[in-house]
């Protein structure tokens, strides 16, 4: 892996509480890294430290082999896209995008030309002379992207960039972000609490909780084989089976295991998960979600996702099975 940036043993304390607790992470050149976690997990703190807006209590930030830990934002090879876009309200879109070049002493005609080109890249070729308040949320988002990308950062930092958009626009912008990142080739680090967004975008997912990294790796691996119970549940719905459960004994599990809802099958007889009674059925359009309580372990409720053609009703007893390769063994 070609390491572009690395953070080593980062700790950030506010009084007695640690927003980040001994976090280490490597960011590959040209990669799309997503920091995923609930609020308070430390993901935004980590991004702020990468951008230089916060100085860590201890630990280091290295970008392109240079120690940037105490370097102010302006001198770092990073640029940030803020959650509320933070566009300059009194400037035109063109002047917004050209601002970073202006600060670097690029003359007007050259920076206007680059700003126009970058606006075209983000899909806003006609917005140059407009003011930010004349644009929609999605368009402002693109201006913020263009403004950050035009200074050619090594690392683009995005703080919940799609958080303010409605769901449909969010999914659309998410596809555009991914294709933009592939076109410009800059390494992106993107903070979100939306696991669908994270999986759609990331080459490398970092699941964070309470200031620590719970798991990190390619999205397929983190989804299919999460390292911890937290990572398993945050990356998507799952059924956690404690090691002491009779169901775990039946599965011959060595530790706590988790099952994805789409991997639990309803079978006619037998089944390595044993019998369960259906307690809830929710129709979701392309699939149905079923909640079923294990008859071997009444504390255990399976979350199952299955096709809509299945004819079952609340109160039915069904036999459940899972393929051994889909049993996710959790550490920690």
């Amino acid at each position, binding site marked *: 892996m070609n390491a572009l940036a690395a953070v080593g043993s980062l700790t950030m304390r506010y009084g007695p509480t640690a927003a980040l607790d001994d976090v280490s992470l490597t960011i590959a050149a040209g990669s799309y890294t997503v920091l995923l976690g609930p609020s308070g997990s430390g993901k935004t703190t980590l991004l702020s430290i990468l*951008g*230089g*807006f916060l100085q860590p209590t201890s630990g280091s930030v290295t970008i392109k082999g240079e120690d940037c830990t105490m370097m*102010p*934002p*302006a001198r770092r090879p*990073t*640029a*940030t896209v*803020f959650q*509320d876009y*933070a*566009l*300059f*309200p*009194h*400037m035109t879109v063109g002047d917004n995008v050209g*601002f*970073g070049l202006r*600060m*670097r002493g690029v003359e007007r005609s050259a920076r206007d030309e680059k700003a126009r080109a970058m606006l075209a890249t983000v899909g806003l070729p006609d917005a140059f002379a407009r*003011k*930010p*308040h004349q644009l929609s949320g999605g368009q402002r988002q693109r201006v913020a992207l263009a*403004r*950050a990308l035009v*200074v050619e950062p090594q690392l683009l930092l995005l703080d919940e960039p799609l958080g303010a958009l409605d769901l449909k626009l969010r999914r659309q912008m998410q596809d555009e972000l991914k294709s933009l990142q592939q076109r410009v080739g800059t390494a992106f680090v993107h903070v979100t609490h939306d696991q669908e967004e994270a999986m759609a975008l990331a080459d490398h997912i970092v699941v964070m909780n309470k200031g620590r990294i719970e798991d990190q790796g390619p999205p397929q691996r983190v989804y299919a084989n999460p390292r911890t119970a937290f990572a398993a549940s945050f990356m998507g719905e799952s059924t956690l089976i404690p090691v002491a459960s009779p169901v775990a004994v039946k599965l011959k599990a060595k530790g706590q295991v988790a099952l994805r809802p789409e991997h639990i099958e309803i079978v006619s007889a037998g089944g390595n998960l044993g019998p369960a009674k259906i307690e809830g059925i929710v129709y979701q359009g392309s699939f149905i979600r079923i909640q079923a309580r294990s008859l071997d372990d009444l504390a255990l409720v399976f979350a199952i996702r299955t096709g809509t053609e299945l004819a079952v009703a609340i109160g039915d007893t069904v036999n459940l099975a899972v393929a051994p390769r889909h049993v996710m063994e959790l550490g920690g």
Partner: protein
Amino acid sequence: MRKAAAIAYAALLYGFIFLPVAMLILFSFQGSQVPVPPFNGPSLKWYQAILSDSRLTVALLNSIAVAILSSLVAVVLGFLAAWGFARFSLKWPGFWKAVITLPLTVSYLIIGMGLLIFFNGLGLPKSLFALGIAHVVINMPLCFAIILSQMTANQANIERAARDLGARDWQVLVLITAPMLWPALFASFFLAVTFSWDEFIMAFLLTRFDTTLPVEIWNLLKGGLSPRTNAVGALVFAVSVILAIVFELVAFRKRNT
């Protein structure tokens, strides 16, 4: 019936407030030597008289110069102080804010006397310069309070974005913060000009040979009532009204961003 009573009440109230000013303005157009009824005008001769009186026109220019320069300084200082409070964490911010805005609650007479004694000790003679400093003292807290009230956390994020793109502190202030706060800066400037323009007590205490229009009017009044004092008063009033209108337009205009 109730409506008629309400109208009568309103007429009395507004009459009470504005009748003196209306009389002042009316008799500034008086044709004869004394500003008392009967009115035998209108005549512009008193306006002609004051505009050809060099003492009054010099005082007028002094007033304008003191008002504009002291207000500029007050706005700049108030802006910087407000920025400091809004963007940096301070121990006991409430206490320091109270200290800055304290001059708003102290009478001009007390501040003027204090400054008179202080300037005496410094060896700074009574002058328009001394008066300008006094007007900065009374107007800076006002500018500070107006500007601080318009500073938001969202603007702090916008400043952060500018810094991220390579702007230095002074570039952030000049290119980002000040333009974003333009309406507040403009409004506080006009309010400061209005207060400086009308201010008499400090001008009386702190100036001697060159003085401002309110003091010059007071000098005129010592010679007894004359339509020319009415004419000067009407002019001062007119300027105050214009400044107040500009302030209202700027301060209460809906911001479209």
